[in-house]
């Protein structure tokens, strides 16, 4: 036993290095994209949606991890919204989270999901910039 702390393996993949970083804008409106995948970083940086003012107030930090080890099954999209958090799940391996208060877009992208789908479909849905067609919330009584 040594006196140096030893850590658990990073099972949540929290500490995956994100060497591909792009940032633009001033301090208040800074848009920052961080990823472990160059294609994702470039795709998100170049997408319209995260540059649109109505999609965000102030800056936005996007940290997106290409998940090469997670499960890949399924393609059904479901969304969950609770207070400042909005979560999009696609199949088993993709989960995107938008924290509106903290202006953060975080997520893991399954290896099966193309960047084009991520930036043209999944992120716009998450940010509420695309109509939520076929919404199924019939199980609940609305306030």
């Amino acid at each position: 036993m040594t006196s140096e702390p030893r850590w658990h393996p990073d099972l949540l993949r929290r500490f995956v290095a994100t060497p591909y970083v792009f940032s633009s804008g001033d301090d208040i409106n800074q848009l920052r994209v961080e990823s472990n995948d160059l294609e994702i970083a470039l795709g998100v940086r170049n997408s319209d949606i995260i540059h649109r003012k109505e999609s965000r107030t102030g800056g936005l930090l996007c940290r997106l991890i290409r998940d090469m080890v997670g499960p890949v099954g399924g393609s059904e999209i479901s969304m969950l919204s609770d207070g400042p958090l909005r979560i999009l799940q696609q199949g088993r391996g993709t989960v995107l989270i938008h924290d509106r208060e903290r202006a953060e877009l975080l997520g893991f992208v399954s290896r099966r999901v193309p960047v084009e789908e991520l930036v043209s479909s999944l992120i716009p849905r998450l940010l509420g910039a695309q109509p939520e067609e076929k919404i199924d919330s019939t199980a609940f009584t609305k306030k």
Partner: protein
Amino acid sequence: MSFFSIDQTVLSHSMKLCFAGAGCDLQTNSVDLARALELLSIAADPLRAGRFEMRVVVDESSVEAVGEPHFRGLHHVVTASFGSTNLFVFDILRRTLSARVSGVVARDDLFWKEKLIPITLGVLGAAMGLVPVHCACLEWEGDGLLVAGVSGAGKSTLSVALSENGFNYVSDDWTYISQRQGSIVAHGTSAPVKLLPDAVQHFQSLERHSLQVSMNGELAYEVDIAEAFGAQVERECQPRWLVFLERIQEAGADFTPMSSAEARSYLNSSVERLPPQLSEAGAMRERTIQSVSTLPCWRFRYGGTPQFAANELREFVVTRRQEVYA
């Protein structure tokens, strides 16, 4: 695409619950889930560690059972999915758990008892001053004994043997530590005791049970210790000693003192590394670990059966108590 807005759903069942020293404000649209969680809750304690909110939307139109677990985390958010319908989102900074589950999962009492509540305490605990430590915990006449050891060291088999030898059982693998009025308190959950297949050699009553694949993929017996062994279960106690298990080949047992630095290193190694966004929670956790590591610590090296080790530990505790209370 399905869309579930917790904000816009009437969560008509609200209750205040308590799990392992943490208060929980539950809101759900399912009376079945509310009743199941109420049964798992312990009596409310005004001095508990902290509170969290749990908001669960139950989708009765889905019949998906508990699927393979999948966990991910970034910054202050951790997600856990058990199939495509059952999604749990932990916001550590805001101390909230938001979830959408199927009607089948809402009524799966064992899932909440054995999986979801321990996972929730493990994930949100850091923000509530509740630190999960990789130790079993047993209680003897009001005094707690934390039993640490790497996986496979024999914590669970020893916990069963100790609970058959006069100790009350608090936990066999993960114990949740909080600080209360300057003292540390160890809490257990109602998670089952997990015993590897060879434990049947030492505990014949296991023959009545079957092996199951546990969440980490291991084949093990996962049994309710009170039901399977008639153990007396305590929800919490005040730890007095910390013992590190080390199995040796030769028969025999010995205790040697350990430094608090070694104890702290072990305890740090058993907690999840936290990202910079959770630095405040990390500092609070560090203070609790520091307090635990100042307990009298011993290395317990033993070779032999769990029953033999339990006898040795019982004698050790009796002797230490005589020293303390003399």
